């Protein structure tokens, strides 16, 4: 195993990841700045100043990777878990293993589809631009000032921030429905938000080879019937997402749930009937 050149000043980098990533690190550090990192004298500034040798020994023990479990980051390589409604895949959270050294994270909007319509809606990065929820909610209920307010202008008393849960995921997220103008965008954002959970699901199924995680291996999450996207409406009923026009959906959606398909059986007919009885 090659010893990474940074070992001297950090002293703790016997981590196995370095063998895969060390090329990238050297590449990145030398290529980017032209600096020899040693020259900057990054030293482990811990109190008690342990010697590098001791740290190496210590790290060696703790750095043993258990068994055959893949690195989480390796898992994400090349993954493009897809929601059925979303046209574009793309690894928003690619952890930099196969991208250029100087820009480890590809920009979201660099992966956009070629523009077909006049104003293609922008994909949302969580928490960017940094605007507080209170302000977003207030603005969302304002009519837009510009001329082109076909979609945005309405939404009186519609739901804004809704909680999103996913079966099997350890915590809830929130999305602002006003950020989206179509189901495609919503599902694309949810896919990104919950990608890590779906991966762990696949991981637990024991996929052995890690360099071939292509779309064909991971089921399309909506059409592939592993998960379905459902929502609770104002009446408290659980409905399948996608059955009603977008505006109607945002006006009535109280919360979202990414449900296992097995549990969602029986939802579809109810949604249809409810729709019919409404119209």
């Amino acid at each position, binding site marked *: 195993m090659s010893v990474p050149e940074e070992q001297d000043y950090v002293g703790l980098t016997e981590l196995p990841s370095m063998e895969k990533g060390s090329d990238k690190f050297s590449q990145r550090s030398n290529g*980017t700045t032209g600096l020899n990192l040693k020259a900057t004298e990054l030293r482990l500034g811990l109190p008690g100043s342990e010697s590098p040798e001791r740290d190496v020994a210590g790290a060696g023990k703790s750095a043993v990777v258990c068994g055959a479990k893949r*690195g989480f980051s390796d898992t994400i390589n090349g993954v493009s878990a897809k929601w059925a409604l979303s046209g574009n895949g793309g690894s928003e959270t690619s952890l930099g293993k196969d991208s250029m050294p100087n820009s480890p994270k590809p920009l979201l909007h660099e992966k956009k589809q070629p523009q077909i319509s006049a104003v293609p809606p922008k994909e949302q990065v969580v928490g960017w631009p940094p605007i507080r929820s209170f302000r977003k909610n207030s603005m969302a209920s304002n009519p837009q000032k510009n001329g082109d307010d076909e979609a945005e202008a309405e939404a009186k008393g519609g739901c804004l921030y809704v909680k999103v849960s996913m079966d099997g995921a350890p915590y809830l*997220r929130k999305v602002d429905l006003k950020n989206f103008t179509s189901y495609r965008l919503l599902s694309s954002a949810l896919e990104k938000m919950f990608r890590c959970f779906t991966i*762990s699901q696949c991981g637990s199924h024991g996929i052995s080879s890690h360099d071939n995680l292509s779309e064909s291996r991971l089921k399309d999450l909506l059409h592939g019937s592993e998960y379905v996207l459902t929502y609770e409406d104002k009446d408290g009923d659980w409905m399948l997402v996608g059955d009603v026009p977008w505006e109607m959906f945002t006006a009535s959606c109280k919360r979202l749930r990414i449900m296992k398909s097995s549990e969602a059986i029986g939802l579809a007919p109810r949604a249809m009937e409810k729709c019919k009885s409404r119209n």
Partner: protein
Amino acid sequence: MPRIAYAFPDEVLEHVFSFIHSDQDRNAISLVCKSWYEIERWCRRSIFVGNCYAVSPVMVVKRFPKLRSISLKGKPHFADFNLVPEDWGGYACPWIEAMASAYPWLEEIRLKRMVLTDESLELISKSFKNFQVLVLSSCEGFSTDGLAAIAANCRNLRELDLRESEVEDLSGHWLSQFPDSFTSLVSLNISCLGSEVSTCALERLLAGCPNLQSLRLNRAVPLEKLVNLLGRSPNLVELGTGAYTSEMQPDVFSDLSRAFVGCKQLKSLSGFWDAMPYYLPAVYPISSRLTSLNLSYATTESPYLVKLVSECRNLQRLWVMDYIEDSGLEALAVSCKDLRELRVFPSDPFGLEPNVALTERGLVSVSEGCPELQSVLYFCRQMSNAALVTIARNRPNMTRFRLCIIEPRKPDYLTLQPLDAGFGAIVEHCKNLRRLSLSGLLTDRVFEYIGSYGKKLEMLSVAFAGDSDLGLHYVLSGCDNLRKLEVRDCPFGDKALLANAAKLETMRSLWMSSCNVSFGACKLLGQKMPRLNVEVIIDERGPPDSMPESCLVEKLYIYRTVAGPRMDMPGFVWRYTGP
């Protein structure tokens, strides 16, 4: 050893200390010697805890037995932007309970980004006989029922301020719980409430409270009602209107104008939801008195905004939407020579194309025309190094500079270069800069500048910037006064973090999300630094210890603490515990 410290009786020292109010000075006093520590701790009346997990309620109560006022902050700042999952923590309950038994004479509680229940509110209302001030800033977890308890039981309440909290609005009737005999209210801020509050109850309350100086209504209060309310509170200094819109009625207009004039102390206006141009001129008669104007919810077109702002020649603080445009900011620069703080918010942050003519030019104008300008928050869609350098040279007295170029990693639009030089000029010229937020295309170079020049910098926010660990290293090793660092989507990783581990104990907190820090580094840091809580927000199932060391963590929050690991970590937050 000379016993000089004991030459004065304790009472004399205590009397001297009673003139010292600043927390830093008080902390310094307590370090002089043991007896001063003892005297000081018995007479400290007010405490600020910047991170509620840095210390435990038990420790605070034990050290300071006679507190009257406490301020606590909970969640990390990035929780405002949805980056912190639900149920992460920041619970006020253990604090309230500890204080309820220890401080029967507690007067003031101020919480920010904490979770508070109705039960806690009820406990507050019943435990503290002289309770006076409740400020809940960006808090959540409670409903109007809890507020009803406060209204009903806190006989001496002076301030009730719910700024930007998420309140479950069960009914507007909680306001009626203030008894008829209630007279002490000085400040009321209910601007965050969604539903209607009873105007009758409001009127009754205002009639009974002649000392009311600050009133911030919620959007549901219609403009016509505002006139009545203003009539009953002639001593107002700060007013937040409700919805500033109505059918165009001349008598409403003139009544409103008269009502504004009738409040002879009125200096600050906010609210203005859905502001109609027709009613803005009602403010003109008092415009020269105004020192603070928050129009950030007024979706009014530029000319009307500009006219209003130009009338307010003594304005010190302006919050406005980008509808004001460059031309409006130029007018501001000409009219408002006393301007100290400017915030410009985006009207269409998620749109692809600019919807208003607001660019870097507006900010440059203000920097040129307003010599007192110190604090800026500016959202825009283009920036240049030249503009930033100009701003920096114009305003070396800047103390807070937060720039948000809406598109991540956007370069200088003129030269297509990174904005390193521009931000570098800001930190170089503005020697008293305490807070900085970066945006646009930035390399490690900008962090080199920040580390070299940002010696007074206390809080730094970084997103989509940098090339390597060097960036983080420059900041951690160079910024001597850094207290809070929050980073998202930057290629900063283990090396810089571990090499600057000791620095982390001198800071309040570090947030890193979507960076390149590995799980192994977190374990190591947690292992070596027992006075840090290194909390990883894990995003996959399974015992964290089985996660390979090379895994990159998605979210990391590190903070110094003397309280050890927190007891209320949810399942998705992991902290090193083993040997």
